[in-house]
């Protein structure tokens, strides 16, 4: 994985320059760990800050020193400038790396650091301020001859003004937080009604996320790609562009899968975008690493979207293809060194893909946050050309307080095809238990023909899955493989349960049968299977077709490496019960199967059907979070789709709506309540 991973050469380069003695990382999770790694390589001492619930977090363990900066809520800890300033004083850190999010683009924080003579590893206050404000940044970009989107370059006062401006620009429009980023406080409106609603949501979200509810409106470019240019600038007026990252695969304006380079850009467009990005960086006297985001339409017209004045979540893919360590570069620049490279030194070596692995349920609007304790966790690090940036470990809690990201899984290859193949393998070998995760969705995206051919846009997910993500759709052959694996696993487990060691009593195991007749249920389909075994090899006959499955059959391992009909496949067994339920993760998606002996299956038909709860009249919280507002009271009549309450989780506000027109029977929550996934919110009649 280019220079970033070849430790020997890396070490030499890093030690060559004198930088800071001690850096405080004002962040948590994977990015804090990421920064600490580079600091360690550079021989710099590190200080972690943490909230009380994070006191045994990985970043705290990795750092040389750690300081608790407050209780769990971010505004009391990771956004608590006073506490962080104290931590700096207390530990004598000479510089602060802010990571992304939190205080990374907070000019107030940068100012306070400057006042104390502490270096901020990032751009100076002027650039943060200029680029942090979407209105101002657009004006500067225009002046720097960067292509911009038509829109209203001012703060929108209220919903009615928003409607008026929207009418002038023409629908669709995008309403977004002036101080925003990361998709928060952002809404798209196609008509006046949606504009009013969007204005309300965005201003609430903006207020809670950024403490600043100013909004702006611009023309919404329908079906664009999101492509961004990484720039690197020093304090001496030099700037470079480190090629692009394709970030079009998004859900609710948050990125899911990124790659570098983009399949879409030709060298001319790339250069044009790169040069505009650099000219913008120079216009604001930018120093450090930054990212200029563009929307690119199908004709390769590109428009400036915003500039992120910080290290970006998806920076590893740029590191993979350029061989640069961006954190190291940022530290050097902050120290005042000149750039080491010229534009002509910047290569595109191979291809890198990043999947953002989140603790969220991809079956609910492509991902609603889930929480829990990682009861088992194993990163696929024994594979070559795989990088995992994470800040959690087995036993870590994913809580409602912070971003639900588990890790960034990056694979690298000489070609895109190679990188994608590696990603399939890495996702299949990634063991995450205890929280719901989005691997099913990631695994589907990277093999989808449209994605593989590079035909993507920011609308990829809603276009490919118009009715929501439903998991992998099995082909007939895959279905057979899955059924055969479940059957073989069942037999292997059955055989083991007859083996008692050192038992003095006579155990009468029936002469070992070589043939089993089993009934396997999958999605209400019932299949009769014939299984025969020879050692670790099973031959399973399904509807006249034979499937050969062989493997070690280690029943304690989370991973099931198998050879199915000669092909290597890694499945995971998520559940295996005495009653024959087997849940297998296959091609990323988990499938619930039930394996029964022929006898048990035939007797099962007499078992009573248990009636599931009628869910249309019951509104349950789809995720853990807190109730922001309840818009109904018992006795109210609601229309189908009418908002009933708003749940905030991980800083996102989610409107809960009625599934049918009905009268409200009872309300079980009030604003300010904390609710868990599945908690009853409102009951309709």
């Amino acid at each position, binding site marked *: 994985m280019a220079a970033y991973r070849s430790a020997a050469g890396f070490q030499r380069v890093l030690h060559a320059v004198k930088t800071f003695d001690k850096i405080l990382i004002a962040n948590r999770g994977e990015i804090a760990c990421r920064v600490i790694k580079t600091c360690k390589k550079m021989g710099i001492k590190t200080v972690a800050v943490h909230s*009380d619930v994070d*006191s*045994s977090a990985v970043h705290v363990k990795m750092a040389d020193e750690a300081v608790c900066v407050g209780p769990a809520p971010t505004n009391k800890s990771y956004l608590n400038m006073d506490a962080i300033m104290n931590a700096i004083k207390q530990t004598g850190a000479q510089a602060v790396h802010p990571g992304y999010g939190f205080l990374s683009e907070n000019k107030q924080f940068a100012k306070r650091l400057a006042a104390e003579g502490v270096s901020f590893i990032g751009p100076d206050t002027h650039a943060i301020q200029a680029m942090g404000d979407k209105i101002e940044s657009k004006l500067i970009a225009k002046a720097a001859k960067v292509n911009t989107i038509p829109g209203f370059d001012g703060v929108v006062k209220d919903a009615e003004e928003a409607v008026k401006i929207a009418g002038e620009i023409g629908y669709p429009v995008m309403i977004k937080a002036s101080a925003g980023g990361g998709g928060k406080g952002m809404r798209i409106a196609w008509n006046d009604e949606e504009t009013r609603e969007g204005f309300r949501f965005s201003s609430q979200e903006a207020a809670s996320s950024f403490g600043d509810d100013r909004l702006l409106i611009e023309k919404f470019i329908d079906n664009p790609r999101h492509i961004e240019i990484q720039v690197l600038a020093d304090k001496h007026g030099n700037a470079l562009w480190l090629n692009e990252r394709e970030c079009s695969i998004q859900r609710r304006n948050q990125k899911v899968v990124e790659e570098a380079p983009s399949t879409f850009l030709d060298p001319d467009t790339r250069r044009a975008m790169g040069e505009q990005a650099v000219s913008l960086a120079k216009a604001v006297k930018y120093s450090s690493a930054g990212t200029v985001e563009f929307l690119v339409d199908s004709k390769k017209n590109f428009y400036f979207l915003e500039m992120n004045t910080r290290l970006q979540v998806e920076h590893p893919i740029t590191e993979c293809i350029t061989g640069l360590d961006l954190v190291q570069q940022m530290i050097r620049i902050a120290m005042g060194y000149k750039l080491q490279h010229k534009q002509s030194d910047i290569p595109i070596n191979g291809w890198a893909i990043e999947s953002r692995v989140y603790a969220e349920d991809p079956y609910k609007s492509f991902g609603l946050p889930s929480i829990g*304790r*990682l*009861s*088992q*966790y194993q990163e696929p690090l024994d594979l070559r050309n795989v990088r995992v940036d994470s800040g959690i*470990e*087995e*036993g*870590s809690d994913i809580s409602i307080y912070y971003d639900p990201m588990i890790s960034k899984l990056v694979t690298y290859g000489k070609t895109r095809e190679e990188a994608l193949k590696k990603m399939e393998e890495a996702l299949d070998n990634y063991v995450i238990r205890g929280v719901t995760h989005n691997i099913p969705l990631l695994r589907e995206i990277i093999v989808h023909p449209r994605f593989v051919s590079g035909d993507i846009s920011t609308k990829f997910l809603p276009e490919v899955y118009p009715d929501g993500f439903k998991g992998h759709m099995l082909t007939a052959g895959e279905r057979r493989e899955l059924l055969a694996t479940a059957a073989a696993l069942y037999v292997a487990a059955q055989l*083991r*349960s*007859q*083996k*008692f*060691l*050192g*038992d*003095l*009593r006579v*155990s*009468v*195991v*029936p002469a070992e049968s070589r043939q089993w007749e089993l009934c396997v249920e999958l999605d209400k389909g019932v299949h009769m299977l014939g299984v025969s075994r020879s050692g670790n090899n099973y031959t399973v006959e399904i509807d006249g077709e034979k499937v050969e499955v062989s493997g070690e059959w*280690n*029943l*304690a*391992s989370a991973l099931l490496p198998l050879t199915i009909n000669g092909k290597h496949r890694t499945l995971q067994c998520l559940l295996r019960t*005495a*009653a*024959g339920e087997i849940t297998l993760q296959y091609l990323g998606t988990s499938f619930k199967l039930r394996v*029964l002996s022929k*006898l*048990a299956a035939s*007797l*099962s038909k*007499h*078992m*009573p059907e*248990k009636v599931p709860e009628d869910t249309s009249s019951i509104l349950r919280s789809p995720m853990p979070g807190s109730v922001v507002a309840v818009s109904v009271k018992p006795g109210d009549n609601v229309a189908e789709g009418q908002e009933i309450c708003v749940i905030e989780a991980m800083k996102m506000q989610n409107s809960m709506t009625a599934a049918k027109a009905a009268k409200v029977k009872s309300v079980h929550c009030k604003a300010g309540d904390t609710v868990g996934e599945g908690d009853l919110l409102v009951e309709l009649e």
Partner: protein
Amino acid sequence: MNARGYSVNHPSVQERIEKKRQAALTGGGQLRIAAQHKRGKLTARERLELLLDPDSFVEYDMFVEHRCSDFGMEADHNKYPGDSVVTGQGRINGRLVYVFSQDFTVFGGSLSGAHAQKICKIMDQAMMVGAPVIGLNDSGGARIQEGVESLAGYADIFLRNVMSSGVVPQISLIMGPCAGGAVYSPALTDFTFMVKDTSYLFITGPDVVKSVTNEDVSQEELGGAKTHTTVSGVAHRAFENDVDALLNLRDFFNFLPLSNKDPAPVTECHDPRDRLVPGLDTVVPFESTKAYDMLDIVHGIVDEREFFEIMPNYAKNIVVGFARMNGRTVGIVGNQPKVASGCLDINSSVKGARFVRFCDAFNIPIITFVDVPGFLPGTAQEYGGIIRHGAKLLYAFAEATVPKITVITRKAYGGAYDVMSSKHLRGDVNYAWPSAEVAVMGAKGAVQIIFRGKENQAEAEAEYVEKFANPFPAAVRGFVDDIIQPSTTRKRICRDLEVLASKKQTNPWKKHANIPL
């Protein structure tokens, strides 16, 4: 008359045998079988077929018939070969088990003298050869036509339940009604499991309840699976339906030794005995008031995260159940900080005590995870007799002579520290995690007593925390054998169990002990 002494007009013995056999196999007949199925229940024989290994069932007393001659019962059409129960022995995963399965299709599975006699026969043999007894209960109650003979039959079974207790494991699976005197046989067995929605246990049904106490209650509320697994604690676990219950019973059976003379079984294990469990290093929260799930610890430590929990929905402040360590069955007892801070109260003490005694009776090592703030205070508990009920758990741990390994994960306060398989009660290996706090009580309470009315309580509290809110006071006195890194717990326990496998310890001779009932 032919040479063999039978009339040519009568069927041959061979034919009669065949006919009786057929009749026995169809029980109460196709109509009643269909009715049984319609209720979502399997027949007595179907249940045995599913419970036992294929072709392993050896049936006894297929030709036994009831002996009642009153109320027209003597009529041929009222005689069913085998009567209302199927008995015999068979194998579960190759291991011997005696079984009886009551046949609801014959007189509603009611218990006649003959029915009881059949059950007694297999129970007697099970005791002699040393093999567990599984009863599948599905019976309307006493055979009223037989009167006292039926009652005598119950008593004969009760006596054998008691005699077998502690000799062979006895398991009852309630798969239909079980009312009146009949309930006491399951109550005397080691484990009672139920099937949701189709099984009931009560002394008197809703009608009698209504006439005596004027209470309106449904069968399900009075004695359904939910009631007994959550409220009364009569049943140890409930399953979805007959098939689910029987398959789970097979799985459960694998944990049990065949008798008190057999060691706990050891199965082939794929989980490395020296596996480190990194997640355990962070499972106990820093704040000692914050809850965590003891099951996270249990699942992390045992083989393949497989834990057969007993009474999972009753007295949830204590967790008990079976698991394996390097293939060998162990009994797990753990305070559950997630529920009522893991305190000991009446119900959790009784739940724990009964489980510990089962393990001790059947050579199953006991692993105890301790995080207990003490006994639950209050009038409800005192009036309910927490003193004598709490004593049961103390008694059970103290008298147990099987290998006992204890891990103090966090709090071990007051008398509850002593109770939870402490060193003083002959714990073989007692560990403390670094987060352990062994003390008479929490710092705040202690300081309020020691320094009553004095100032500087906060300072004193800090001193108390410094002194006692750590594992050292117990470790310097040898009350814990070692302070261990949580991630190494599995490895240590597996190693200790190997050492303790040959443990021999006996209590003084006595007719029987006198546990505070």
